[in-house]
């Protein structure tokens, strides 16, 4: 057996979220060194003053934690620094070639034009709010499956799943297997999604009101919108990294403008066409990306062969690269099953909205049974490409300094596009890039529509006592889409994030779904669930926000646990919060039952 260079333990992963994601700026590479010829990496004012915390002994480790705690209280980084890690990692290093040509740019532009024109054309079919938000509930199962997969298989998904394959090896495939399996179970049983469709709601907070009252809907809507908008705040950066390495755009400023134009296109046709344009563009994206992904995987397999792929995984990651229990641990596997499986397909609102859009309960089941293949694929194929990138880089010693310094994986988000850039021939790489950009746009249009609909329907309209007319709601939803788009530009591209991206996304996503899962579960299946229980559950889920890396609360918790010799992992935190939400619902409902229900029982 070849020697194990480094038994790798990948970082905790978030699942979902569509843009769910495992994009980590902190673990993104040797930024202290930077690329040859790249600008000096971002450093905080404190580290420039020579105040870096000592490391090594237990005492020094705790000093580092205290330093982190105090640093989080007194922010020592500038708000906008063009040398920030987020921008630094967009630089294309020398030595990486790309097959992207003028022909490929032509394919990309032609494809984007077609998608945009179709998106605008869909505006003719918008009559009322139901047409705009759920396409008039006219989706049949074939189209619903295509759009479900098209929406969930976004560019960010490919970035974080590819990263998982690169950093975790073949063992990362367990995420796709569990996601597909749980989605299949949801389809067969109709768990959560069938009763939700039966309720006839457009959004999940709308169900909150139906079951628990208006106040729960407003609070749930605020938490959902907050979590969702923050969660998608970093999609632009992740997409930008991918496109840089695939197309060979060297200038990060030029790339920022390309991504900005794409976002503006998405905003325009989502504002005008609503769910109808989302459905059409998702369908087109599904077709293009299906061809592109399958062709990429086949070519990668032909180039490398299974023996080289398996050998590279064993060399870099050891046994943990193929055995998920050894590589990730049982806690992580359970967390994956919950988040990448159940939450992704049934609780995350962009997926749940699809269930609400289809024409019948039978179609909901069909949608989930067939989409289970999509949920498997959206992890399996990018993970495989990530593993192939690992095998390719392992054979290229000139790239070790960048991607495998000291035998450890680095710049993991850029490994897959760097590999595809030299693997795919001209013409096909244009098609794949078009598919990826379409995936980028498709994820954004779905998410923009979803969060703006939540803000209009579940926060503003209930607060105004339903005095908002249909044209007023449509206008407000479109205004929210533009505002969120503006936020994404500032937050994602121009604002340097200080926190680790993965932890940030995991926490923002779970702020919503830990509480929402319990609320849906109890609301749909337990008659005794009460309004007080619902409030407590939502608030407990919101506690996840306090655990964001670099916040005083998280630094304090880490410090306390470190004294006892424990280390807090995100998957444990997420599972504990979910259990806390369950307990809050049970005890809140038992101690404070709803008066109406109590009177009915009496």
């Amino acid at each position: 057996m070849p020697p194990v260079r480094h038994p790798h333990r990948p970082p905790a992963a978030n699942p979902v979220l569509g843009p769910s994601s495992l994009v980590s700026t902190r673990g993104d590479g040797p930024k202290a060194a930077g690329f040859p010829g790249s600008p000096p990496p971002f450093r905080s004012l404190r580290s420039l003053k020579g105040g870096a915390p000592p490391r090594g002994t237990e005492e020094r480790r705790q000093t580092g934690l205290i330093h982190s705690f105090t640093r989080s209280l007194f922010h020592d980084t500038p708000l906008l620094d063009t040398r920030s890690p987020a921008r630094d990692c967009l630089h294309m290093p020398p030595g990486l070639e790309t097959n992207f040509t003028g022909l490929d740019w032509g394919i990309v532009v032609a494809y984007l034009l077609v998608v945009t024109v179709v998106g605008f054309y869909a505006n003719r079919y918008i009559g009322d709010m139901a047409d705009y938000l759920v396409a008039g509930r006219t989706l049949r199962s074939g189209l619903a499956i295509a759009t479900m997969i098209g929406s969930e298989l976004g560019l960010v998904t490919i970035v974080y799943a590819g990263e998982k394959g690169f950093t975790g090896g073949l063992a990362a495939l367990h995420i796709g297997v569990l996601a597909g399996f749980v989605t299949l179970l949801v389809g067969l049983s109709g768990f959560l999604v069938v009763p939700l469709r039966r309720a006839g709601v457009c959004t999940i907070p709308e169900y909150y009101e139906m079951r628990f009252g208006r106040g729960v809907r407003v609070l749930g809507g605020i938490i959902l919108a907050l979590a969702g908008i923050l969660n998608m705040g970093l999609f632009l950066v992740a997409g930008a990294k991918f496109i840089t390495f695939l197309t060979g755009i060297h200038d990060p400023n030029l790339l920022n403008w390309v991504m900005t134009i794409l976002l503006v296109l998405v905003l325009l046709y989502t504002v005008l066409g609503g769910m109808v344009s989302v459905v059409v563009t998702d369908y087109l994206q599904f077709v293009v990306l299906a061809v592109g992904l399958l062709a990429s995987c086949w070519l990668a397999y032909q180039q490398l062969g299974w023996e080289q792929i398996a050998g590279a995984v064993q060399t870099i990651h050891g046994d943990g690269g193929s055995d998920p229990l050894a590589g990730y641990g049982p806690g992580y596997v359970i967390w994956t099953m919950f988040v990448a499986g159940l939450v992704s397909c049934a609780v995350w609102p962009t997926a749940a909205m699809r269930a609400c859009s289809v024409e019948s309960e039978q179609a909901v089941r069909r949608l989930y049974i067939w989409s289970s293949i999509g949920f498997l694929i959206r992890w399996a194929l990018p993970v495989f490409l990530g593993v192939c990138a690992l095998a390719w880089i392992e054979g290229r010693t000139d790239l070790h300094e960048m991607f495998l310094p000291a035998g450890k994986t680095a710049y993991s988000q850029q490994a897959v596009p760097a590999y595809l850039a030299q693997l795919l021939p001209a013409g096909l790489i244009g098609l794949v890039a078009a598919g990826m950009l379409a995936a980028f746009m498709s994820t954004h249009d779905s998410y923009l529509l979803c969060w703006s609909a939540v803000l209009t329907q579940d926060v503003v309209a209930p607060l105004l006592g339903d005095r908002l007319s249909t044209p007023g709601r449509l206008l407000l939803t479109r205004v929210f889409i533009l505002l969120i788009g503006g936020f994404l530009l500032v937050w994602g591209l121009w604002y340097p994030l200080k926190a680790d991206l993965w932890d940030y996304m995991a926490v923002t996503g779970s702020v919503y779904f830990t509480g929402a899962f319990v609320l849906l579960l109890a609301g749909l299946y337990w008659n005794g669930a009460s309004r007080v229980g619902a409030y407590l559950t939502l608030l407990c889920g919101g506690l996840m926000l306090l655990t964001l890396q670099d916040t005083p609360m998280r630094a304090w918790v880490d410090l306390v646990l470190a004294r006892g010799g424990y280390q807090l992992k995100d998957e444990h935190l997420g599972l504990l919060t979910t259990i806390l939400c369950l307990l809050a619902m049970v005890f809140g409902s038992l101690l404070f039952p709803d008066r109406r229900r109590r009177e009915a029982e009496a």
Partner: protein
Amino acid sequence: MNWIEIWKWVLLLAMVSFALLAVVITIRGALDLGEMFRRLKK
């Protein structure tokens, strides 16, 4: 069978099933798209 072999078959199964699904959904999706526009037009 070791983990490497398991993942090999999982990947093969995933790719074949996705290829078949893509063909079916592309055709059915196009038909459903036409139907959706017909209904919305009414």
